[in-house]
Structures are given as structure tokens and as C-alpha cells.
């Protein structure tokens, strides 16, 4: 039987990695692409820029705390920010299904405008396609962006023994929120997406002179995917204290009900930071000034115990590997 693309190829886990490496890298191979960063860093004349793109196909289009438009801005702004780049210009493509409500589209566009104001980024070019019913599911959005690199050398290759790991916020809120909305799980509380542009806290870290080794927003595949990718890329071990990872009570509840791990849930406004231990307190002091990173926490450290592995320590003294997410995760969360 001929090979087909499965939903798991888009889950952000192992299958996605193999599709990228075995197909896209095989044919598109070049030095910049192979670095596999959130955004490519390029030199144009004397200016160093970061360049990236992302497509948004989330279902449902509206959810607590955001919608596809807010995601489309924050997602690309964050990919640039994770390269230490000040987001400057975006392009935006809309793929709209015939029959889509104008008022809904306007609501989405307005939330895009509001999200851009937070980082000062501008949409400077765009494209619009309308396809017949069934061609897309309501609305898909693609954004691409360039930013000016203000802090060089951030890379998944940089983790070294003695570094520590900080997460900027509770993990799993976006994934749990989307899942709860989609499965119509009524939560008594007000769980909402963490969707946020992270340029402000990143800029503040840079301005405060914090040394950053690696920085990534924990989108598809969640915290687990980021830590595993880092451990593998830098050939180190990352050891994490489970009790220190901030997870909202509602997210724990959704995970228990449906059998997921919060560390595998997607986030849209939560970043993971790796830096030397001596920088940790300064970074936390900076992050706590911003609402989007007020719940930041130091969760672990970089060691050499098990190369290329992430180890999770329980509060009662046992330990296990946090394996990279596999299989079909929640489809279409971003």
C-alpha cells in the first residue's frame, strides 16, 4: 500500500520530525534550514535578521482567551522573539471558505490588530484566497515575519552542564483549553489559552543583560518536545523536578480525565529558557514584572546523567524519562 500522510505527521512529535528530516530536508537541504531553529537567522547587508513563517488551522476558530487571528500574530511574533529578534514586519495570507461570516472575519482581524500593538509589529503585505465550501475548514491563516536580531547566539545547540531551565508560565493551558472546547467538557473555572506575544519579556531580558543560551516557545508537543529537542541537539541531559513545573489545576483535571500529560500539551504564550545558573535569579526578577510571565519558575538543570534524555524527578524520589510526544496528538491546535 502506498504511504500516506497521517494526522500524527502534524502532531509536532516524533513523526513530524521524521517527515521534516526525511522529506523536506532531503530536498530543501541548506545550512540555514538544517539548524532547525524557530526562525532562520540571516545577514542582509550589515543587518542581522530573523525570518520565519507559520500557518494557523486551529479548530475551533474561537476559544476562551483568543481566536485564530490572535494566534496567527502571537505565533509568528514569538518565533522571531525566540531568536532574540525584535519583530518588525509580517505578511499575512487568509484562506477563507466560501460562506464564512463577514462579522466573524472582522472580529478575527480586529484581534490581530490588537495583538500587533503589543509588540509593535506591522502587517506590510498580504494575500486573500476564497475557496469553495469544503476546501478549508472555515478559515486558515498564514503569517510570515522578519525581525531585527538584538541578541545573537541563542540556539538549541548551546545547552551546557550547569545551565538551568526556566518556564515562563504555567504549561498546557492552550492545549487543555482547546481540547475542553472541542470535546465540550464543561469546566466550572475560567481556563483560557495562554496565547500571548512574548517580545516584551524577551526584550526586557535582553535589556537587563541576562545571558541566554537557548529560548523556545513551547508550542506543539509542549514542554516535553522542547526539552527533548534541546537535550538531543546539545547532547546533554535535562533533569526536571516535576513538582516545580507550574500547571494550572484545571489543566491537571483535564489531563486526568482524558489521560494526557500537561507537558505534552501545546502552549501559545509560554517559553522555555535555558541560561547559566548564575543568571537565573536576574531572569526570574525580570519575567515576574510581566503578566504573561508572572508565573515563571525554575524547573530543572542541565547535566550529563543520560545524554540526549530528559529525566523527570517525582517528589517522592523516583524518576523516569520524559519521552518526546508520539503519535496522534490533538489535531489542529494552532
Amino acid at each position, binding site marked *: 500500500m502506498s504511504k500516506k500522510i497521517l494526522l500524527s505527521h502534524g502532531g509536532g512529535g516524533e513523526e513530524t520530525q521524521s517527515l521534516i528530516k526525511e522529506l523536506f530536508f532531503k530536498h530543501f537541504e541548506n545550512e540555514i534550514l538544517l539548524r532547525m531553529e524557530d526562525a532562520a537567522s540571516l545577514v542582509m547587508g550589515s543587518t542581522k535578521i530573523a525570518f520565519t513563517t507559520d500557518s494557523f488551522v486551529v479548530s475551533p476558530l474561537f476559544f476562551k482567551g483568543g481566536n485564530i487571528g490572535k494566534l496567527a500574530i502571537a505565533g509568528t511574533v514569538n518565533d522571531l522573539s525566540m531568536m532574540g529578534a525584535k519583530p518588525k514586519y509580517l505578511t499575512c495570507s487568509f484562506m477563507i471558505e466560501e460562506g464564512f461570516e463577514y462579522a466573524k472575519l472582522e472580529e478575527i482581524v480586529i484581534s490581530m490588530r490588537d495583538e500587533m500593538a503589543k509588540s509593535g509589529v506591522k502587517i506590510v503585505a498580504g494575500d486573500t484566497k476564497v475557496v469553495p465550501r469544503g476546501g478549508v475548514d472555515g478559515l486558515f491563516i498564514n503569517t510570515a515575519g522578519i525581525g531585527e536580531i538584538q541578541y545573537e547566539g541563542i540556539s538549541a545547540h548551546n545547552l551546557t552542564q550547569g545551565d538551568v531551565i526556566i518556564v515562563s508560565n504555567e504549561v498546557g493551558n492552550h492545549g487543555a483549553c482547546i481540547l475542553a472546547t472541542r470535546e465540550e467538557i464543561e469546566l466550572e473555572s475560567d481556563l483560557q489559552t495562554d496565547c500571548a506575544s512574548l517580545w516584551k519579556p524577551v526584550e526586557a531580558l535582553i535589556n537587563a543583560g541576562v545571558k541566554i543560551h537557548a529560548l523556545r516557545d513551547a508550542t506543539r508537543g509542549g514542554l516535553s518536545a522542547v526539552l527533548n529537542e534541546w537535550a538531543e541537539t546539545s547532547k546533554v541531559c535535562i533533569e526536571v523536578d516535576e513538582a516545580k513545573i507550574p500547571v494550572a*489545576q484545571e489543566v491537571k*483535571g483535564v489531563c486526568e480525565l482524558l489521560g494526557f500529560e500537561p507537558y505534552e500539551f501545546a502552549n501559545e504564550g509560554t517559553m522555555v529558557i535555558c541560561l547559566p545558573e548564575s543568571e537565573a535569579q536576574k531572569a526570574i526578577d525580570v519575567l515576574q514584572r510581566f503578566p504573561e510571565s508572572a508565573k515563571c519558575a525554575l524547573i530543572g538543570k542541565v547535566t550529563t546523567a543520560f545524554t540526549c534524555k530528559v529525566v523527570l524527578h517525582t517528589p517522592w524520589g523516583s524518576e*523516569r*524519562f520524559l519521552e518526546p510526544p*508520539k503519535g496522534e496528538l490533538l489535531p489542529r491546535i494552532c
Partner: protein
Amino acid sequence: MSEVDLIEGFRDPVHMKALAALIKKECKSKINIMEVCGGHTHTIMKFGLSQILPELIEFVHGPGCPVCIMPKERIDHAIALASMPNTILATLGDMIRVPGSKTSLQKLRAEGKDIRSLYSPLDVIKIAQENPDKNVVFFAIGFETTTPMSAVLMQHAIENKLTNVFFHINHVTVPEAVEAIMSSGDALIDAFLGPSHVSVITGYKIYEPIAEKYHTPIVVAGFEPTDVMESVLRIVRQVNAGKSVVDNEYARAVSREGNLKAQALVNTYFEKRSHFRWRGIGDIPNSALKLRAEYAAFDAEIVFDDVLPKTELNDHKLCICGDILKGRAKPFDCKVFGKACTPTNPMGSCMVSSEGACSAYFKYGKLNLKGARA
């Protein structure tokens, strides 16, 4: 009370450490404990419980994962049913991923077949009402826990006068499987952790004959880490006292008689199957259910008999799942574990679902290798 109050108290580090210390102090002899249910396997591996228990306590991972024990020919049934024209196949959880002899439901779905993964079997009613021109086949799996939901679905299908809903029933029962393992004579099992959710439905009385016949303590345990630790302690105390009775640690949910209403509903629609083949174990008499004859019009195995393959399919001869289920081997003893057999490409039953023993070892267990951390 929020949903999380039901979790955190049962994961309290102080209690966990206290229970570990008591077990260490009181355990005097080697005890092989079979956790029957895949949910317990998951708890043991995810929370690293073996690492804080004395070496005298050894867990044997039982046959209690409904996806894992499904023989390949019945997965082929699901694939044949889903391949019929004008058909929607609905099922639960991991079934989507499990490979049959040629393909999986997941791959079939990518080819355009309509296959739905549900959280609640009752979603089938809505699907059937929205698709009156299509056959909606519910591929029902699970132990005594999920059988009542299939019965309720049947009840609703009848009440709603739906004629396009069909059932392929693969509901299996715990006591017969445990009996089959113990009566083989070569199982190395001294005690059992009784399943949590199965017991909520059936009551713990169903285990009394086994405890008596094989002189094995059985403690019905909840799924949280302190539940399992407390239950292990109770087993140790029974062994020390020379007792072998059924004890109920999961008293917050389980009674001796169980959920009588659910049992009655199950009896209304289902009856025992004379035989069912368990992947990794083989044929076990009276170990599964089927629809009663009066509901034959709903029975996919009867209505669509002509499309269902009949050949029995066994796992590769290198697979040692049968020995793992009897406590005679651990996943690490298997030559193909983690190499030719992985969760993405399982060769044997225990690797199939996330609740299977090999799959849990693969995901969480590599640190349990003795001496892994020098």
C-alpha cells in the same frame, strides 16, 4: 470540591514516603504481585513506584488492557467493517492505532474511510441521526468497566428507533482471564492488585473464588500512587499473617456488590460468549460477551458476516507477551523489545496500547533498569 482535590491528596510526597518506609520495614519475603489492570501498570511505571519499593516486591503486568488483548483477526474485522461502502466506524481510544494483519484504522482513515475516535459511546447516536443513509458500526471494546456504556448505547439506539446502528462486541471479563493464567500452573504470582474501575461495576465479590482457590491475597486498589502503595502494604500484611482474602482499598468507589443497575442493564443485552481468543494468552472459555440473540439485527458480526475474515492470526514467534502476562518474563527480557517492536510498530500485544506492559516500559521504564544510574 474541585476535580484536582481528588488527585493531589493521593500523590502527597509525605504519604508516599511513609508508605514506602512501612512496606520496606514489614516486607519479609519475595512477593510477585500481578496488577491485573493496565491502568495500574501505567500508575506503577509513570510514578516510578518500583524504585521506592523493596526488591522483594515484584510487579507482574496482567492482561487488563482491552486494546492489547484484542487478537489481530478482530482488528481485521474492524478494518473490514470500516472499508464497507457507506459506513462510519466508531471506536474508542487506542484502537485507531493498532495494526491488524495489513493496515490500521488510522491508515485507513488517511485513505478517506470515515473512522471516528470517541470519548463517549453515546456520541454514536448523534452520528447515526446525522447520517441516516450510512451504517454506523460501533466497535465496542473494554472490560466490565465499559460494557455498561455499550448497553446504554444499545438502549438509546432502540429508544430512538435507529436501524443504522450496529455493534461489533469485544467486551471481555476479568475473572476468567485471571483464572486462565493461574490454572496454567506455571504462573509465578503470589498476590493481585484488583482492578479499580472494573470493580466499581462488578463489585469485589467476583474475586473471592480466585483468592480462595489459589491462596492469593487480592486487594482492590484505586489508580492513584498512594492507592497502589497502600494496597501493596495490605498485601504484605496479608502475606505476613498467612491470609489470602479479598480486601478493598478503593472503598471510596467500590462495594462488594458493585453497581447493580449497570449489571442488570448489561444482562439485558449481553450474554456470555462460549470462547474468546486473547492475544498473548489464547482461547479462554466464557471470557467475553456477545449480544443476545434477540438483538441479532444490531449485531455487526451477524449482519455483516460475509465481509469478516475468519482466519486466526498469531503474533510473531519471537514475541514473549504470553510469558510476560504470566510473570515469567519482563519486557526487557524480550529480544525484540524496543528494537523491532515499538509503540509505533508493535509486534505483540503488550506493546500495542499505552496501557500495555511493554508500551509502559518503553515510555517510562528505561530508568528502572537496575544500575542504569551508576
